[in-house]
């Protein structure tokens, strides 16, 4: 190929790269710094509300992995008592279909996303592990009633002052680094 004035294109590209040097950084120093996830995150641990669950079994039928184990026995007239409600988060693909199908809002996706485990058996979530606690909170996926209490997602589209992710120009100098900082 022949070029009349060799180097113009490269100079233009370099000019953009130079401009980029003076833009604020977009990445953060995980895990020292964490971004706020979406309100509707389909997190790694589901939340189950035993008082709302009727044991109808719709969620077990909706799950495409056949992942939810539900054992009930008949209590007073027209009521099921749930003996066992168990799901394996190692097999779950976090599609959210079980949450969508539950007619009594008894199941919700969790907010957690750092759920690595040392042993395979620990990924099985039984009735106790699925219950609502301070650390184990539901997300607003298909449950808009939980959306109000959750923090706003940090979007890359907005600047930091508008609650976004774009940082100051020299963020590293102002921040302590290392674990526990």
């Amino acid at each position, binding site marked *: *190929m022949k*070029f009349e004035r*060799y*180097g*113009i*294109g*490269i100079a*233009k*590209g370099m*000019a*953009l*790269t130079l401009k*980029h040097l003076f833009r604020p950084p*977009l990445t953060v120093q995980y895990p020292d710094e964490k971004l706020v*996830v*979406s*309100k*509707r*995150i*389909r997190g790694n641990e589901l939340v189950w509300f035993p008082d709302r669950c009727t044991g109808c079994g*719709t969620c077990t*039928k*909706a799950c*495409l992995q056949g992942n939810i184990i539900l054992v009930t026995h008949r209590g007073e007239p027209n009521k099921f008592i749930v003996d066992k409600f168990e799901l394996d988060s190692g097999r779950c*693909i*976090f*599609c*959210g*279909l079980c949450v*969508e*199908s539950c007619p009594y809002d008894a199941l919700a*996706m969790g907010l957690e996303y750092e759920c690595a485990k040392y042993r395979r058996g620990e990924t099985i979530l039984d009735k106790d592990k699925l219950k609502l606690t301070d650390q184990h909170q539901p*997300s607003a*996926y*298909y449950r808009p009633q939980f*959306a109000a209490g959750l923090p*706003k*997602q940090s*979007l*890359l*589209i*907005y600047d930091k002052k508008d609650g976004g992710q774009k940082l100051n120009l020299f963020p590293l100098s102002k921040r302590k680094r290392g674990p526990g900082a």
Partner: protein
Amino acid sequence: MPIKTEPFYLNLGPQHPSTHGVFRLRVELDGEVIVNVEPIIGYLHRGIEKLAETRTYTQVIPLTDRLDYVASMTNNLAYCLSVEKLAGIKVPERAEYLRVIFSELMRLANHFLAIGAFLNDCGALATPLIYMWREREKIVDLCEMTCGQRLLFNYMRVGGVSQDVPEEFMPALKKFVAEMPKFIGEYEQLIKQNEIFLARTKGVGILPKETAINIGASGPVLRGSGVNWDIRKKDPYSIYERFDFEVPTGEVGDCYDRFWVRLREMRQSVRILEQAIVQIPAKGPIRADVPQFFRPPAGEAYGHIEAPKGNLGFYVVSDGSIAPYRVHIFPPSLINVTALADMAIGWKVADLIIVFGSIDVVLGEIDR
């Protein structure tokens, strides 16, 4: 006495950084010149078509996410369209617009990745790729806001979409669309005139018009060869006939044309998004009344869309039961990769990487 020579066989992949996944190329070489290329596929086969036969119609949707995982919402859309055709379901107005918005966002996200990875293959290591990913990240943020995950969205449903967008979605989308043309201009500035890039891509890996049509190529590969074929125009689905946009085409069908078609297509996607933001009804139902376990009447239907990589089709056969009798997937990447031998023969090994990168394949879709 003539010297007896033997061809040299080179295995590229399955674990090679430029094959974009687990993909193997068996290249027959004469010195450094390619005599023959044989793609060997199947390393990522998960049997999605067979799995779909044991799932209900709704449960197939998360499986379709795993085909083209770079633009998974378009897979949802193609599947839902064919099931809607089968069962004769009408989709509410607002849901149609949301579907169009997300398909165009996915097209942008896919082309960012395609161009970035292509430039990476050309030797512009990492810098353009990261520039492109910066913009792709914004799209992923928007999708995360709507459906809770960043890659496998599982958002569309038969008869609409799973849930309405949150109220902070529309302002964020408007800001994104407003600043997008500036960034596309930046990419043009970065690459379009770069002499090294031009020297490596202009006239390399030419796919003639007739060959492209005969192979059945689609998407930017076909349009790069100068064929004006876009299913959004030729067989409009959803509400695409309401939007005003152009179909960019290339001239000779070399690697540069395929890149250039993608870049111009991004501008058209932004145009569609601009119109969709204005036209979308502010309120309304987003899902037709389709039960979770529904049974479409016995029959068959084929629905196809213009996915970012080309013509993506789903052929669904129902026997009236709760699960589909057969789901066949017609993936664009598989058809486009068969054009590789036609493009690469006669070029050097270093050009093979560029030609392969310019096709833009995703292995999840090829192997299914």
